[in-house]
Structure formats: C-alpha cells, structure tokens
C-alpha cells in the first residue's frame, strides 16, 4: 500500500511538470500583458516607459529563465507577488481558498444529500412516478447552466422575499450566521447541478448491483428491503459514484467562477479569471498548479477509497 502511494506520488511529478509547462506557455502565447491592462487605457504611458517597467518586473527576460525562476519559486513554496496588485500570491490564496473550499464542501454536501437518496429511490422504484420525477430532476440539473439558475434564484429571491444573501463576504469565524446566509444559496445552486450526474450514476449502478446474485441471495434470506439496499447493494454501487464525486470536487475548486460572480464571493474562480484577463502570469500559473496538485491528490484519494469500499481491491 505504502509503496503504491509512493509510486503514485512519484508519477505525479511529471504530470505537474507538464502542467506547469502548458500553463506557462499558454500565458506567454496570449497577446497583451499586465502593464497594458493596467496602464494602456490612459494613453499617458509611452512604449519606452512600458519597456522599462517590463524590465523591472523581469518580463523581458528569456522565457527559459522566467520558467526556471518560477519553478524554483514553486518548489521553494514562495510563489512570489502579483504583477497587478503587488500582493504576495500566498496572501491572495489564503483569502480565496477558504471561500472556495467552503463553497465546494457545502455544495458537495447538498449535492450528495439530494443525489444518493433520490438515485437509490429511482433505482428501487424503477419506472414508477418517483423514478420519473427523480430522472427529470437529474436531467434538469444537467441542463440548467449555473449562470441562468443563479441569476434566477437571486432575482426571484429579491422580488418574492425582498431578500438576497448579504453582499460583502464575511468569514465563518467572523460571523457564522451571516456567512451561512451568504453561502447557502450559491451552494444550493452548485449542489443541484452536481447532484444531477451523481444521481444518474447512483441510479444506474444501484440498478446493476440489485441484479447481482448476492443481492438475490440476500432477498432470498428474507432480509428487510432497507437492509438489502443500504447494507449490501449501496456500498458496492458507490465505487463509480466516488469516482464522479472526486472529479467534481476537483472541478469545484477551479470552476465556480460563475456562481462566485453572481453571489459576489471572492473565491479561487474569480481570482483566477481576473488574473487571466489581466495577464497576471504568476497568479494564474500558481492557481493552475494548485488545482493540478489538488486533482492529482484527489485522484489518489479516490483510488484509495475503492479499497475501503470493496475489500477485494488491494494495492501493491
């Protein structure tokens, strides 16, 4: 087991290196740079002055040198400063990561709370009205985009209840109640979308497992329905569901920008997208590497979870 984990960690190194090379190259291929974004509009800054400022920031150095320097900063866990704001990237991440983690965690909880019971219900009552309703909900979750659902939720909350989540993020430690008010609706919007895929997967895998011989044996032994479904069938049906959930968690860390924008939450999504738009190379590169590292780790955790769910699986 330890050897397996170690091997996987070693394999992560080329993956991360490749990711770093891709994001570094993509950022350099994009036209424009942070100085143009910051000062270009004024028209007051001449080409010579811009060139000098680029020199001060090291943007005129050869790409190989820039890449090497950045890799060293990443390895030494000192990702440097934002070109745009001059804020240390570590500080920006300390502010943004907790927001996204909280949003992702709440969304995952809401998604699972909806998906697993409805998926199981759909499977155990196949082709009944409950199944149809469950399937419609799942298809809706897959088809309704975040920006549409989020906008609708905030608009109708304002019209019908004369209430929307308080704008202006406060941390969980600062004011738990206000923080919960701020996160509940966005997490519900994200959770609803996440629940769709998980629900579909739960339904189909539970259906498959319910047709297995050992489940038939359990029924034949006269076990209660709930016991058969939840103790014998569900645990085995969860392996593909865990794979999906692991992937979703990774996506949530980088892909909540729309919901963060609508609900004015200062998370990783907004930080990264703003950095891309303003060509803030160090911020984009660091954020992408953080997400890549998280995804690699999550994949490993998901694989290890398989062994816990299914004792037949052993890693060497």
């Amino acid at each position, binding site marked *: 087991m330890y050897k397996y984990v170690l091997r996987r960690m070693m394999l992560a190194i080329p993956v991360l290196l490749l990711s770093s090379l891709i994001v570094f190259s993509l950022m350099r291929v994009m036209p424009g*740079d942070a100085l143009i*974004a910051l000062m270009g509009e004024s*028209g007051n800054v001449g080409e010579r002055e811009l060139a000098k400022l680029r020199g001060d920031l090291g943007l005129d150095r050869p790409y190989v040198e820039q890449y090497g320097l950045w890799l060293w900063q990443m390895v030494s866990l000192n990702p440097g400063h934002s070109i745009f704001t001059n804020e240390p990237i570590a500080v920006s991440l300390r502010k943004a990561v907790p927001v996204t983690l909280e949003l992702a965690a709440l969304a995952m909880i809401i998604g699972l709370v909806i998906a697993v019971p409805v998926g199981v219900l759909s499977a155990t009552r196949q082709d009944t009205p409950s199944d149809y309703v469950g399937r419609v909900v799942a298809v809706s979750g897959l088809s309704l985009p975040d920006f549409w659902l989020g906008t609708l939720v905030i608009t109708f909350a304002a019209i019908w209840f004369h209430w929307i989540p308080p704008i202006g993020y406060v941390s969980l430690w600062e004011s738990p109640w206000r923080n919960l008010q701020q996160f509940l609706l966005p997490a519900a919007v994200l959770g609803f979308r996440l629940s769709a895929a998980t629900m579909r997967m739960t339904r189909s895998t539970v259906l498959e497992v319910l047709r297995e011989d050992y489940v038939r044996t359990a029924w034949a032994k006269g076990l209660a329905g709930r016991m058969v479904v939840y103790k014998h069938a569900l645990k085995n049906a969860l392996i593909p569901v865990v794979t999906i959930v692991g992937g979703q968690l990774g996506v949530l860390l980088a892909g909540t920008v729309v919901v963060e924008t609508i609900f*004015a939450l*200062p998370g990783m999504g907004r930080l990264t997208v703003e950095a891309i738009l303003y*060509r803030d190379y160090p911020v984009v590169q660091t954020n992408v590497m953080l997400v890549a590292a998280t995804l690699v780790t999550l994949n490993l955790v998901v694989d290890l979870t398989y062994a816990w769910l299914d004792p037949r699986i052993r890693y060497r």
Partner: protein
Amino acid sequence: MLGLHARLNRRDFVRLSAAGVSAAAVLGRGRPAAAASPYPDWLPASTKPPKRGGVLTRASAWDPPVIDPRLTQSVGLFQFAGLTSSRLVRYAFPEEASNAIDLTLKGDLAESWQSSPDHRRWTFKLRQGVKWQNVPPLNGRELVAADIKYCFEQYAKEGVQSFTFREIEGIETPDKYTVRIHLSSPNVLFPQNVAESVTVIFSREILEEDGDLKKRLVGTGPYILKEHTRKVRVVLQRNPDYYDTGRPYVDEYVILSTPDAATRLAAFRTGQSDILHVASLSEVETVRKTNPGVVVQSYHNTLTPFGLALAQDRAPFNDVRVRRALSMAIDRQKQVDTVFEGHGFLGWGIPYIYFQDAMPTAAQLGPWWQYKPAEGKKLLAEAGHPNGFETTLFYYEYFPQMTSQVQLVQQDLKKNLNIDVKITKLDYTTYYGRYVEGKWDGLSWGFQSGHAVGLDERTYMYMHSKSTKNFFRVNDPLIDELTTKLRRTPDRAEQRALAKKIFEREHDQVLRMWMPYDNGFLNFQPHARNAAALAIRRTDAYGSPTIARVWLDK
C-alpha cells in the same frame, strides 16, 4: 411627466418613443441628436436642512485593480479616491451648480489661482489649515505647498498621469501656501487638467515609506479609507478633520464589490444598495415595479465615449471619401431606436458644452453624418472601390448593446457598400494591447477614456498628432493648429469658437466616426438626498466627490 409615464407600460412606452422619433425624423432634421427621456436629467438639490449620520451603501461593478493613483486611472479606484483625497481645484457639486452642464471650477485645496499674461506660469494660493487625515504616518499634519510640489513631480516622473504633468517645467513654493507652476508652453486650460478626478494629491510619507501607494491611500479628503478588501468591499469613514467643516454628512460609505448586474439590481431592490446605474429604459421599469419610490435621473454625459476608429494612416481609410462613404452608409438612428430603445444620442466627440448650450442636432453633425447610402456608394466608387472591399473590425464588449451595434454596422456596410467586415471580439487586455499600440489595420470600435472632461484633454490630448492619447490616429494639420491655438486662447468666447471649429473639422473629415450611445439612468433610494450627478460625472463613478454632499433622509 412621471405621472404620464406611470400609466404606460414598458412596451407602450417604447412604442410611443419610437413613434415619436420617427415622426420627428419626418418633420425635420433639426431635432436634437438625443431622444427625450421620461425622467429628468437634472435633480435639484434638496431644500431641506441636511441630516448627519447613517451609512450609504452601493453595490459596485468595479473593483480597484490597485489603489496607487500613479498607476491607474481605473474607475474602480476613482469611485472612492476622490473622497479620500483632494485636488487643487474641482468642478462644482450639484448643489452649487446652476444646471447639469455647469463646468465652473471651484477651489478644493487651492483657494484662488491665476496665470501670468503668457499663460505659462500658474500660481495657486492654498487654503490654510488643511490637515492630512489623522492616521499614521501623517497623523493630521498640515498640508503645505511642498506637498503639492512633491506630488506633481512624482506624477510627472512615471505612471499613467505623466503626460499631463510633463508639461510642467518647474514648481516653486515661495511660501507654505503658494504653489507656482511653470509650464513648458502656454496652456490656459491647465487648471481644468488639475481638476480632473484622477489628479488627486497623495502624501510624500507613504510613498517614501512603502515605495509605492499600493497598500495605503491617505489624503485630505472627506473620507478616510478604513478598509479595502479586494473583490469584497471598500469602507470609507467620515474624516472629522475635513477642512469643509460639517461635511461630509454620511458617517460611512460602503462600496460592495458586486460584479454581476443582476445581483446589483437585486441588492438595490432589497435595500442593500442605495445607488444603481442601469443602461436602459426597460431596466428602469423593472426597478420601478418593485421599488415604485425610486428616484430616477436620466443621465446625460456630454461626450460620446465610443466610435469606429479607422486606420486612417493607410489605404483605404486615408482617403476622406472612403471615410465619408462609410459614415453615410451607417444608419445610426436605427441603433438608437433598436439597441437603445429610443433613448440615447447619435454621438459626437468633443463635449458640446464647450461650444454650444444644447446637444448638437443631427443636422449639425454635417452632411457626412446623415444616413444616405446611395450617396455613400457613389463616393466609394469615386474613391476607386465600386465593388466594396474586405476589412476587419476588432472590439471589446464594454456593454452588451455594443455587440448589437457592431453587428448592425457590419450589416449596413455589407448591404449599402458591399464592404465585408470580419469581426473579432477580444478580451479586455488583448483589445487594449492591440488598440493602444496603434499598428492595426482596418477598423476598431474605439474609445476615449471616460475619466476626463476638460477641454484640453478632449481636444489637444486626444486629437493632436503628437499626443500619446491620439488613439484614433488623427493626423490633420488643421486640427493640430486649432488644438494648439486653443491652449493659448484665454477668452471664453474665442475658446468656444475654436472648439466649434475643431468639432466641425472633425466631422467634415470624419476623423473619428462616433456611434450612438446611451449614458443610462441613475436610480437612487428615496432617502438619498443630493446624490444626483452632473452631466460630467456619475456619482457612482468618477463623480464620487459628490458623495461628500449626500445626506440620508431617514
């Protein structure tokens, strides 16, 4: 007017507006270039005695990229920098102004100013007893002439303000309260340049301690910057030591970073925001459905920020006949009627207030600005392009209506002149990079920066062939001559005459092809008093100093 409007639904209103516009078009060409609005464009100051206290909140689309005024002229910063910091001179506040287009200069840190007869030396007498905000490292020390000297020298040294301040040859401070500025060439409009909302006075101590102004912004303005959390909020607290005793009235001004328009609308509806800007009449109606007490101002700026920029330094756009042909083939009124729901104006470059009192009429824009596609086609044939040509157009979508405008222009040019326009929509940074570099071919949806209103800025700086702000690549000897002459003409009447000549020359040569625009509407909660904007500045944007006069009636 409001009563009539209340009885109409939106569809009726838009239909009637469109009908009115069409009828006016039939009846004559002398109508204003902007359609009438059911909402007033000028809200007089409240006659009630102001109340102290309360918190004013605004959900804002903008976030300051940095808070160093040397590095950005972004509205994100200047939606509050004009409150933390003062300028030498300023424009009138709404309660001091006689109408929405009153551009009278008032003293801010300076009490008086005058120039030498050759307009190369300007002397500003400072207000005595003005204190920096009582926060470290300034700790409430007195502002003196040396502070102004230091600040202006730093602006000239580097950053986005450098062009404006580089015309300063030297600064003297004969005593604590006198600043004498020597210019390299005569400029009668210099005080206007230092009244722009971006020319705020920052402190020597912070720049010397921190090396930049990215972390702290301390000034002499009515509000102290209490908190700035990027992408969350800006909190401004009343400065008790502000030189204008008794002001500001509101204790705290909170700007909440709210990038999504639907969320800003929802925040206003639920009372989380006191000021809301919307782009269209139909959006005002949406607000009024849930908030019937809302106070609406139809905001009319005095200039058009956007227009078609042509690569006029090379073929085919270096031929004035081609430029005129394109201009005549574009149906601008259709854009006003459809994209801007009948509200909005046809567009012009220099703020009209510098050469006449009312908005220019469609006829005043000149013959090349009328929609006459057949004549345009004839002109294009004369220029050697009877079968049209292919060109490109790149743009950044500043607001959703812009994409519709770009597409309408593409359709008009294809239909009327057989010009194939290949459109490229770019992200902000790519667009800026390409646009300001000025080496592109074909067309671009160009802009002039929104922060400045001064005549010098809008003529010499934007149109002189040697100016770095000449984004539209204007290269016209007469314009160079006129804009330079304007800087040496102190007489107001002569200034107006010269500005009119520049306006006429620009439109005759179609040097910048202005497109219709709508400044939209400002919505205020009923308890917000004196928050209306003058035509030059929106209260929620570069006109933020107005907030110093706002009070809450609740």
